[in-house]
């Protein structure tokens, strides 16, 4: 559905083939693992078997003596750690922590923490050499949950760490806390008068909620190849969401100029936030510089699970207060998110997003970032929002039951709208929350009956809203117009979700030409202006504006070219729908004028470098029917509908795919996915056999309803679409389980074991 009359687009809204499709289905697409260079060495990482241990000594002499080994390095071979705050593209962080996560220094802080690296002429020799590195550990008790981490007398991960305020982290003052802690930082939001709001409430509902760490689950493991040249330049081939972030990290760690590092992003087999940081690339680069030969490194699946960041495991305590007429007038939450070994959980985003589907006048949120002996968590699709939203949406479901109200009608009554203040005080711009809720209420799914299961399973339906802020940030685009009327469009945004197609479509729409005339490509960091990461659902929006601006640049130059040819003022020439018109009925088609470029000033290139700031927040509303087997505790999803405000769907098929993918990942977090640890802090399910992600056999066809409330700050109304669909599934499925069984699963995943225990207790 579209909420207002949409302009008659020619390309936007159509469903053309993706430009990278043939390469991918024929296996010709080149991924990082396909890189093979002359004299290439193979690097491997030695990882800590202990979750928490002091590194007493590392003896690499036996490994270095192994025939075929060319280099063994430890933290001492990296440039010195400093407290300098660095912005390496994916987040701001003290350099020492970035460095220590690449190779541990004095402490191993999680099982899988890299402590040494080897490169050799053969990957098997490199693997053998790892067994010849002698590391003496002083094993320490691990901290494996936020509760353990914040308990009195908990082992401290980082000597000297004090809690800091995320916003006012540099407020001067004396005596503001001397105790060492694992609470790395705190963030508080408050607006209105929460205490007065709860005082005024007729009903107050409260609960505690937990979620488990879940991995992004990309198909392609991390990989990277670095080649140091004798002229002091470095080339890196890598699977990443942020080529410029990798460039910054490698430049910093090798202490060489940014311009000396060229990062070539390969095709990427998924990322979902997990491929924002650099893991092995700096190590490969250091070893390449030491050996003078290219060094290739890649992870196996176990390494991906134990050595790269999942999303946080979380604890949320939440309270809402409402009037008897259903108006929610107060809300409060305390969030504690695991950051893993180094500070930096997405708890700030969780605090910002969790209440933002609703217009609540009084809110207080207390958010804590807590370090634990687990891999440093990383971004994962709408990082932080699903977990906080799970708590809020569970309580709203309870409120609807208490008031005997339809759960969607109650949500719609309290919907956020343009002018609503979020928890952080920011006022929401034009949004589509109300339209999304109404579309859900009107959907065939919501209006259908659940029915009775022939197999005797318990059936239930649940709903949930979800919110994500989306992001803007810098993007560049470069368009080279060819004399045959085709265009090479270069961007720096790695294509994870069909962005090449979506960007070419926006460019073609602005130019008024056919989509097939535009050949988009993702280029290396030497070949395009600075472009932020592919993340935050920002590419279709921000890089979309960049290609639009580049097209406008081309159009302006074509108008000037036509004016020169016709010998008229440029102001007398106009460009519309691929036709350049001048006085006296003179016209060129786009292709005709392209043919005139040689000999009239040469070819035309358009470019743009943009920094847009109003990405347009996104809302989703999900409806799910489940069947619960009371004998096994297994939950089957019978029907799932995802309603989402997408602004304008540039390529509806890819938008639908993004929504469906988000639902699948959210369903995994709700039902099966979790990191399971032994008491010693070792992950006991570090394979995809035991770490159970949903497959196509586990899920029905995800029905999508695209609501289009155009973002006024984008030329075609784009809102980011990739992240918000992972937000509602946790609560929607938990609410459906309750509807089916009468059991509130406040701790996710609702795995068969956990749910069966609850069913048997009942």
């Amino acid at each position: 559905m579209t909420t207002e009359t949409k302009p008659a687009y020619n390309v936007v809204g159509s469903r053309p083939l993706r430009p990278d499709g043939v390469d991918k289905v024929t296996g010709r697409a080149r991924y990082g693992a396909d890189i093979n260079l002359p004299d290439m060495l193979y690097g491997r990482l030695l990882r800590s078997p202990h979750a928490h241990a002091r590194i007493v000594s590392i003896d690499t002499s036996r490994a270095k003596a192994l025939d075929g080994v060319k280099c063994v390095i430890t933290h001492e071979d990296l440039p010195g750690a400093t407290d300098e705050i660095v912005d390496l593209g994916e987040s701001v962080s003290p350099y020492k922590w970035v460095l220590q996560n690449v190779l541990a220094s004095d402490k191993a802080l999680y099982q899988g923490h890299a402590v040494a690296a080897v490169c050799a002429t053969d990957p098997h020799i490199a693997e053998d050499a790892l067994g010849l590195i002698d590391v003496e550990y002083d094993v320490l008790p691990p901290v494996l949950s936020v509760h353990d981490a914040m308990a009195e007398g908990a082992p401290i991960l980082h000597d000297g760490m004090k809690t800091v305020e995320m916003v006012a982290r540099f407020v001067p003052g004396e005596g503001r806390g001397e105790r060492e802690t694992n609470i790395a930082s705190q963030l508080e939001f408050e607006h209105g008068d929460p205490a007065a709001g709860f005082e005024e409430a007729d009903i107050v509902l409260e609960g505690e909620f937990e979620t488990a760490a879940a991995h992004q689950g990309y198909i392609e493991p991390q990989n990277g190849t670095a080649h140091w040249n004798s002229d002091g330049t470095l080339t890196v081939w890598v699977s990443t969401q942020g080529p410029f972030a990798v460039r910054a990290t490698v430049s910093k760690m090798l202490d060489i100029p940014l311009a000396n590092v060229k990062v070539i992003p390969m095709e990427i087999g998924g990322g979902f936030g997990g491929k924002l940081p650099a893991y092995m690339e700096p190590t490969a680069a250091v070893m390449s510089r030491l050996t003078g030969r290219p060094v290739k490194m890649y992870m196996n699946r176990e390494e991906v699970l134990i050595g790269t960041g999942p999303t946080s495991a979380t604890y949320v305590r939440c309270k809402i207060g409402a009037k008897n007429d259903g108006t929610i007038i107060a809300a409060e939450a305390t969030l504690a998110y695991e950051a893993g070994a180094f500070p930096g959980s997405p708890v700030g985003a969780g605090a910002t997003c969790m209440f933002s589907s609703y217009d609540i006048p009084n809110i207080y949120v207390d958010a804590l970032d807590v370090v634990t002996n687990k891999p440093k968590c990383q971004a994962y699709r709408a990082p932080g929002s699903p977990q906080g939203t799970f708590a809020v949406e569970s309580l709203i479901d309870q409120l609807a039951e208490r008031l005997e109200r339809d759960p969607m009608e109650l949500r719609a009554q309290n919907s956020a709208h343009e002018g609503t203040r979020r928890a952080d005080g920011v006022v929401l711009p034009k949004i589509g929350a109300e339209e999304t809720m109404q579309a859900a209420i009107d959907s065939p799914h919501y209006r259908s009956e659940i029915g009775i299961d022939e197999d005797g399973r318990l059936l239930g339906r649940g709903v949930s809203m979800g919110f994500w802020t989306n992001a803007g940030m810098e993007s560049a685009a470069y368009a080279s117009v060819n004399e045959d009327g085709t265009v090479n469009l270069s961007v720096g945004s790695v294509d994870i979700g069909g962005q090449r197609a979506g960007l070419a479509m926006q460019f073609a729409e602005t130019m008024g030409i056919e989509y097939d005339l535009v050949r988009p490509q993702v280029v290396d960091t030497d070949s395009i202006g600075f472009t932020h990461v592919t993340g935050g659902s920002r590419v279709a929006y921000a890089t979309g504006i960049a290609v639009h601006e580049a097209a406008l640049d081309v159009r302006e130059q074509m108008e000037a070219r036509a004016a020169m040819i016709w010998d008229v003022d440029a102001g007398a020439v106009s460009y519309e729908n691929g036709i350049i018109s001048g006085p006296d009925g003179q016209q060129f088609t786009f292709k005709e004028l392209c043919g005139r470029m040689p000999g009239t000033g040469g070819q035309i290139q358009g470019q743009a470098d943009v920094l847009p700031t109003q990405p347009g927040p996104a809302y989703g509303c999900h409806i799910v029917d489940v069947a619960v087997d009371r004998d096994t505790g297994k939950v089957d999803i019978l029907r799932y509908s995802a309603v989402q405000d997408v602004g304008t769907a540039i390529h509806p098929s890819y938008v639908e795919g993004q929504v469906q993918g988000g639902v699948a990942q959210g369903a995994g977090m709700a039902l099966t996915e979790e990191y399971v640890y032994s008491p010693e802090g070792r992950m006991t399910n570090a394979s995809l056999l035991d770490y159970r992600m949903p497959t196509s056999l586990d899920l029905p066809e995800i029905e999508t309803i695209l609501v289009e409330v155009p973002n006024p700050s984008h030329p075609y109304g784009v809102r980011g679409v990739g992240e918000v669909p992972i937000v509602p599934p946790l609560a929607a499925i938990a609410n459906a389980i309750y509807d089916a069984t009468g059991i509130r699963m406040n701790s996710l995943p609702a795995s068969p074991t956990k749910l069966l225990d609850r069913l048997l207790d009942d």
Partner: protein
Amino acid sequence: MTADITVFVPIGMRPLTDGLRTVPASGRTIAEVVDSLEANYPGFHESLVEGNRLKRGLTIAVNSVEQPLGLLAKVPPNAEVHILPAMAGGQDCRATIPCRYHADVPASAQPTLEPEKWSRR
């Protein structure tokens, strides 16, 4: 210049404003607004500025729109200014100065952080 700007003070910075949630300020750029705040509530400049830029990890929103130009961003008359953590996946946080929680104050003043409330064992 008229103090027509409303600055929303994050809870962690309210010690600088004697607990006030919002304070008036003047200025037509963020830099001028920070100077105005500093004049009335010393400590803001040190809290927000490093060198000639906003501290990393911070963002400023003017009328609810984040300002990538930082200190150079224009501020229209009667604007609202919010001081926020920069939002990004896995946003980091670090510093040398601790916040008011875990301060050397009675546990009763830190109700959400009492260890017994967190211990599940």
